[in-house]
Structures are given as C-alpha cells and as structure tokens.
C-alpha cells in the first residue's frame, strides 16, 4: 500500500490510486505461488549447505551504558544500509514494471503480496540463507538483519515510484519527446523529480516503520542458536534475559534520542526539500517546515553536499549516442507469439513452484495441522480487528478534537509521528512485568501490545484529516447549528474518512507483524503466551521447525491479503470516489 502524505493528501492522486486495479486477481495466485516456490528453494539450498548456524559468542554485547551510543550507531547504520538497498530496488524494479507490460504483470501482484506478508516470519529463511553464504562470519548475520529491514521497507516505495511513473503529466511527456530527450535525461529531468514527493514520503514512512524491525532483527533465535549482533535490539534482548529493568530503560532512552535526531535531521528536512518537486504550478499556502533544512539552505553545506549530485545531473547533457531502432515487440504476429511464450513460461514456473511447495510441506505437515493453523489465524484476526476497533473508538474523537484546533495539532502531530516511528518492542518488557506481577490472563492482556505501536498511524492521519476540513464547511455547519450527531455523521466523519482508512490500513498491516513478537514474550525465564498464529510462528521459529514456519507464514499472508482485499481496499476506493473534499 502506498502511503499518501496526510499533510497534503492529493484527492486526484487518491482517486487515481484507488481506481487503478493494481492486481488482476488471477495474477495474485501466480505471484503467490512463484514467491512461495522461491522461498522453498532458498531454504532448501541453504539447508543443503548443511552448516550449523554459527556459534559466535554473544558478540560481546555488554550492558554498559558507555557502549550504548556505539550500539545505537550500529543500529542506525543498518537502517541506512536497508533504505539504500530499498531505493536501489525501487529504481530498478518499479522502472521495469512501468516500462514493460510483461514485467508489470508479474511484478505488481508480487509487490502487492510481498507487502502483505508479515516480514518477521522471513527471519528464519533469511537468517539460514545468509549464514549459509558466510558461514561462521558476522557478515552473514549483519546481512540477514539488513535484509529483514529491507523486506519491511521496499515494497511500498517501489509501488509509489511505479505509480508516479504511470501518472506522468501528458504535456511534459510531449515536451520531452518534442525536444528529443534521451531516456537518461528523461529520467533525471522528468520521471525522478515528478516521483520525488511521493517517494520521499514513502521512504520516510518506511524508515519510521523500519526501527521496529531493526530492533527485532538484531537478536534472532532460530532453533537452538541465538544470534546477536551489536545494536539496541541485542542490548534489549540481553537486558530481558537478565531481567535488568534499568538496562531496558537505557535502551528506551537511546532509541528516543536516535528517533528525535532522525526526525529532526532527516525526516523533516527531506520532506521540506521534496516539497519543491510537487507538481503544482501554484505556490502552496502551507509548506512543510524544518529548521534544520532552513539552516542548511543558509549555509554552504547543502550546496557542497549537492555538488556530486549536480555533477551527476550534468551527465544529462552528454551528447546522445546514435539511437538504434528498437525492434517493436507486442505488435503483429511476432508479438502474439512472444506473449504466448511468456505466458507459457510463467505457467511452467507456477506449476513447478506449486509442486515444490507441496513436496516440501507434505512430508512434515498433515491436513489436521493446516486446519489448526487456520483456526489460530482466525484468533489473531479477531484480535487485530477488535483492537483496531477499540483504537478507532478511542482515537478518532481525540484526533478530531486535536485536528480542529490548529494550535494543538501543530504540537501534537510531530509527537504522534515520533510515536509511530518509535520501536514499540522496547516497551514490551514493562507490559510483561505488569502482567506477571498482577497475574493477568495473557490471552487478553498481551493483545493490546499488538496495537501499541501502530495506533499512532490512526492518530496522526485522523489529526491531518480533521485539520484539512475546509473552513467554509465548518462555517456552514456552524450557521445551520448542526446538532452534534448530525455534525459528525454528515460532515466530520465523511471528511476524515479517507485519512482514517489510510491510517487504519497501515495499523492493520503493522499489527499482524507485531503479533509474531507479542503473542509470545519472555522476561528472564518467565514466558507468557497467547493463543494465535503469531505465537505459532514464533514458536516454530524458535524451534527451528521450517515447515511449520512456512505454513504459518503462508496462512498469515492469506489472511492479510484477504483482509486487504475484502475490507481495506473497498473502503479506500469508496473514500476516493465519494468522499473527496475538493
């Protein structure tokens, strides 16, 4: 799902987005099977190497606050490595999807499914794979961690870029063609700038969501082996194992500092910078602001930092090579033949993938297991839906109240965005201690943790929606003295609905991921467990039971995809078609 910046949600874009059928349904299945087959091969290949997962000692993580800045830095670097990988992936894959119809048929449904898969379940596979690549070396663990964060970030960025490429303004395309811009010039002058605002917003959203995964990926347990790489996440894991509450507090503090720095020095300046690329011919009344960006602009630093990029852009002026006349595919008899060959190839791949999956799973799992897992998935589904409903009831009125008061929303909005980025897994130990101390039922009381981190997406989107309610409508509501229920039903709720759906959808996706971490939690040797699919996957991962992890992942992905298709996407389309305030 592409995130639309709630500060300036463009109704036209929203509508275009909702109308576009990204995924023809039969291609969902195709992509799903292909991805599943790929996972099986990777796993199988890694197992063939038959190497024990490393016996690296605890990589020297100690609970010494003096070393915490270093750990925080290493966590941050992992995050940046992942975001750079995501950007490269975005440019290559999204461009391919936008330029080639055949690639598009596979890539777009695949992206759609990949972004629905709760990536924490990937842990088992990626770890096994990367450790197999670099046996006994810390690099394997580092790469596994980075890859996990990458899988949490890349898809919506690629989607956003693809969507921008498909909605380039016609007249600018005409200008590019009329002046004969080369593909490279066209990319630098037209495609990249046009896509920048949406891409930047999605990158920043991805990074905000990514902290959670950085923390989760630094201390992984697969089978009998615990893998630890220095960072805030491994610090936290050690603190939990030693029941050191002060150390947990230090981790929270360090993370808060990192996120504040990230927010002030990266998020806001970048969004403010990207505003220049907005495709509007009129100056906007409220531009995103950042003190740090203004500071950079006043000094020479930015110009100096930007120099290499401008040099790069200078290459746009390189005289073009004589253009080869490309053979035209997709037209005439040859094109039909090519189409058929392509479909046949994809069909073969699908059949083979399906066979691999069945063969892999059939040895270890019976139909009864599968049925049980579906039942667990249903429990987690109910948990997620109830919690979203509760969060909605609590936060929508509060968010609207705040959003209608500009003085408040200016102060609270950054706080909500900060809380959305804060990796909530750092806070779990406190909740666990409370549950243990008061002997509460984990099935009920672990549940709120699922929404703890993701509810903020609902909050800041609702605030943005309420702030965007047009003044003239507010005045009409005032003049006619709409009673409170009528005011909500006819004015406020429809007005904020598109924003709310964006927030709730993000929260829902995040909650499935959180369930894997939340439904089983440890505090020292105390272990709390709730029933649910998340617990099933977590236990299978801890036990190194690959087929069960695969089964759990598959079932969870199916649940998420069905939920998206049958609930969130129709709501989104409805909002875009009927509730636009323009």
């Amino acid at each position, binding site marked *: 799902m592409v995130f639309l910046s709630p500060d300036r949600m463009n109704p036209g874009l929203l509508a275009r987005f909702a109308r576009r059928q990204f995924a023809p349904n039969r291609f969902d299945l195709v992509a799903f099977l292909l991805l599943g087959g790929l996972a099986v091969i990777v796993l199988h290949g890694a197992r063939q190497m038959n190497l024990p997962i490393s016996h690296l000692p605890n990589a020297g993580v100690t609970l010494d606050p003096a070393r915490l800045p270093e750990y925080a830095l290493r966590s941050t670097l992992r995050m940046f490595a992942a975001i750079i990988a995501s950007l490269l992936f975005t440019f290559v894959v999204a461009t391919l999807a936008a330029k080639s119809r055949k690639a598009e048929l596979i890539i777009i449904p695949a992206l759609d499914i990949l972004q629905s898969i709760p990536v924490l379940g990937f842990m088992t596979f990626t770890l096994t794979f990367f450790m197999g690549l670099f046996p006994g070396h810390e690099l394997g663990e580092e790469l596994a961690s980075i890859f996990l964060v990458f899988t949490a970030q890349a898809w919506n960025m690629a989607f956003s870029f693809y969507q921008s490429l498909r909605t380039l303004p016609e007249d*600018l395309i*005409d200008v590019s063609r*009329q002046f004969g811009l080369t593909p490279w010039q066209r990319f630098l002058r037209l495609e990249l700038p046009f896509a920048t605002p949406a891409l930047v917003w999605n990158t920043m959203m991805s990074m905000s969501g990514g902290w959670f995964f950085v923390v989760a990926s630094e201390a992984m347990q697969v089978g009998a082996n615990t893998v630890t790489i220095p960072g805030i996440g491994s610090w936290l894991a050690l603190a939990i194992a030693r029941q050191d509450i002060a150390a947990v507090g230090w981790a929270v503090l360090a993370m808060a500092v990192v996120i504040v720095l990230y927010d002030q020095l990266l998020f806001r300046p970048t969004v403010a910078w990207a505003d220049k690329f907005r495709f509007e*011919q009129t100056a906007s009344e409220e531009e995103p602001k950042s003190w740090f960006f203004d500071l950079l602009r006043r000094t020479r630093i930015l110009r100096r930092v930007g120099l290499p990029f401008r040099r790069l852009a200078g290459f746009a002026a*390189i005289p073009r090579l004589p253009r080869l006349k490309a053979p035209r595919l997709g037209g005439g008899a040859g094109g039909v033949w090519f189409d058929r060959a392509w479909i046949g190839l994809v069909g073969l791949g699908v059949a083979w993938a399906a066979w691999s999956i069945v063969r892999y799973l059939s040895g270890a799992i019976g139909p009864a297991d599968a049925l049980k897992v579906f039942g667990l998935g249903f429990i987690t589904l109910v948990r997620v839906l109830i919690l979203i409903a509760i969060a909605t009831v609590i936060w929508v009125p509060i968010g609207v109240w705040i959003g209608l008061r500009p003085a408040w929303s200016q102060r609270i909005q950054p706080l909500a965005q900060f809380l959305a980025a804060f990796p909530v897994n750092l806070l779990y130990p406190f909740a666990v201690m409370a549950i243990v101390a008061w002997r509460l039922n984990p099935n009920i009381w672990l549940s709120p943790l699922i929404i703890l981190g993701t509810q903020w997406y609902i909050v800041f989107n609702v605030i943005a929606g309420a702030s965007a309610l047009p003044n003239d409508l507010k005045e009409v509501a005032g003049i006619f003295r709409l009673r409170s229920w009528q005011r909500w039903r006819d004015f406020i709720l429809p007005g904020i609905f598109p924003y709310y759906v964006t927030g709730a959808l993000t929260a829902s996706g995040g909650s499935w991921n959180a369930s894997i971490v939340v439904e089983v939690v440890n505090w020292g040797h105390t272990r709390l467990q709730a029933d649910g699919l998340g617990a099933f996957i977590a236990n299978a991962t801890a036990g190194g039971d690959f087929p069960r992890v695969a089964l759990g992942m598959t079932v969870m992905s199916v649940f998420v995809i069905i939920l998206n298709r049958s609930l969130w996407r129709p709501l989104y389309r409805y909002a875009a078609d009927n509730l636009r305030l323009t």
Partner: protein
Amino acid sequence: MTLTMDRPIADALVEVKGLRHVYGTGSGPGLVVLEDVNLTLRSNEIVGLLGRSGSGKSTLLRSIAGLIHPTAGSIGISDQADDDSASGVAMVFQTFALFPWLTVQKNVELGLEARGVPADERRKRTLAAIDLIGLDGFENAYPKELSGGMRQRVGLARALVVQPSILLMDEPFSALDVLTAETLRTDLLDLWSEGRMPIRSILLVTHNIEEAVLMCDRILVFSSNPGRVIAEIGVDLPRPRKRLDPAFRALVDDIYARMTAKPKDAPARDGLFPGTGLGMALPHISTNELAGMIEGLAAAPNNGSADLADLARELQFEADELLPIAETLQLMRLAELDGRRIRLTAAAKRYDAADVDERKQIFARQLLAYVPLAAHIRRVLDDRPSHQAPASRFRDELEDFMSEQRAEETLDAIVSWGRYAEVFAFHDDEDRFSLDDPA
C-alpha cells in the same frame, strides 16, 4: 501507414499531403479526426489553423511536431538547420508545460541539453533567449512564482532557444486572461515583424477568430466532422491590425459565417457534431446556458432571430463559445442555424413562455425525439424490468465510435440534460441510470 519524410518543394518549409488520422478503438469504426488535409507552409508567414475544438487542428500540429503518427498521408519538413538538430520545429503548449522543479533558466535550457550543446554555449544562448523574450531578472525563479503570462514567455523562450525554423503554437494564449493574452500577442508580433526571432515561419492553432485575423497572413478554416480544410483565407490587412477597423470586422464576420455554414453533403441537421446517431459526440453544454440563449434570443430586440456575432457581443460571449450552444439548440430543433443567423423554432418559443415544469416537459420531448442517445437510454430503461442500467453499458457502446475522453464528455452531457428533463435519473456513486425519480 504510408508516412514518408520527403523533401518538400523549394521555398516550402512544411508540406503536408493527404493527411488522414483515425482515432479509434480496435472494435469500432473509429472516429475520423482528419480527412485529406493538405497544407504548405512557406517561409516568412504566419499561418493559422482555425476551427472548433475537436476539428483535428491540434492533431495536425502534433503530427507536424512528430508527437503523433497519422494513419495515412505524408509530412515533409525541410531541415534547414545545419547542425544535427532533430528537426527544425519547436512547439509552444497551451498548458505551458513547464517543469515545476526547474528554474526558468533550466527550463529554457532543456532543449539544448537534449541536443548535447556544451554548457557554456547553452548558458549563453539561454540568457540571450530569456533576454529577447523579456524575462531577464527571472532566470532563477521557479514557474510557480510566475504569473500565467510570464510562464508562457518561458515556454516561448524554451522553443526559440533551439533555433527552429518553424514555431508551432498550440492555442498558446487561450489559458491566459484577455489582457495578458493581448500583451503577449503584441510582443510576439513585434518580435516577428522586426525579425528578431530565429524562426522563419509560425503555425498557430486557435479557436479564436479574432486572434487568427489579428496575427495570421493566411488562415485555414477547419470543419469538424471530420476535420477538413473548408476554406483558405489570405489576410492582407496592413499591420499593426486594429480590431475596430471595419475591414477587420468584415473579415471576422465572413469567417464566422463560413464556420457555421452547413456542409453541403452532410445530413441537414446532425452534421455539426462528429458522428451520427448513437455515435454522435455531444458537447457538455449546461441546460442553464441553453435556457439563457433561448431567453436572450426571444427577448427584444431580437424577437426570435439574430445575427450570431451580434448575439455573442450582446450576451458577452466569445463568438466561438456561442457556437456549441447554438448547435446544441439546433440539434434539439429548438433553433435553426443558417449561415450567420440563428432563429428560434416554435418549440423554443413555447419553452420561453412556459413555467418551470412545462419547460422541462418541452425539453424532454425535444431531447427524446432528436438526441438518439437519450432515446436509446430511455428505451433500455423502459425495457428492463428493474428499470435500471449500468452506465458502463452505454460508455462501452460510445467507445466503439469515439475516444474514451469524448465518450465521457458525451455521457456527462446526456446525464445533465436527462436529469434536467427528468427523463431518467443517474446515480454517480453506483454509476448507473434508472427511471425512478428521487423521492
């Protein structure tokens, strides 16, 4: 496709022969946008392509610019340029088409950059073009900081800087307010007559008759069903031309009459809109405009008939804005057009005298009798037991005859007329037609 790029005859910069372009979906017969168009553009002249929207004049311009590949015919462009420039043409767009993230200077440099001109020379030529067009001081401004007129100056500088021999202009002034447009026209004509621009010829697309007469040495008038050159008019009024000059006015009126004249071979009344029967593309004219025009015509001193150009002045319309309204009235047999005169029919006179409900009844009768699409929708709704039909059904039918965009506009028109006449209802959220009136 038999498009060839032959060298044109001596003296001619552009030579278009037998151009035909069909816009269409695979299944339907398609809409003929241009039919047998011939055009020769010579050195040192401004030629206007005049016609109403949908007459294919923009398609012709885009074909010459190389943006569209016509279905048949040949376009010859003499490449006078000595350097390796792609073609001797550059285009100015109605929407300006500036890159919002580039400064004025970078926008102007774009075409040079594409041709691989070295940075120093690029800068020199860009600044010269900016200077020529009266933009100095704005080099580092972004388009969003400029007014519409200044933006179009950037568009003009961007086209001139590549030193084309032919400047193509696609309704370059129609997105500007009247005063700004006039200033820009005058400035452009000054530059042209003083020979300060590197270009040798201008091809201008417009739907504004006065603009064409003011600027052009030669005007090609296009009919719109299909796009065809129906007249070629030389303008030899001395420059600078004055709008109030009687000769100027006479010429405008003359062109006006030619544009409204019935084509001889077309069916008597449907001929003015592209397509026939169900496939007729309808303009989205609001019922308020139709009522306003009937009332204006019926009132003194017109008393039911008037000269179109006079009526336009009286109702404060641009002359060419009035035409689609007049033709819609004619389509519904509420008026008769004959050359420059428009006359109300008996039905229209009854309409003028009636109250709100009677007006709707009269309008409904005319609509169902003379607009085939309206009758068709009504018939489908009557036939179905549920009295409902999805709009997509009619949209698909229309798209057999015309482009998606035209089909959408036609459907919008029929929805607003049908709603006013209360002959059917339309539910936007469910995209369906029904017979029931809202309770």
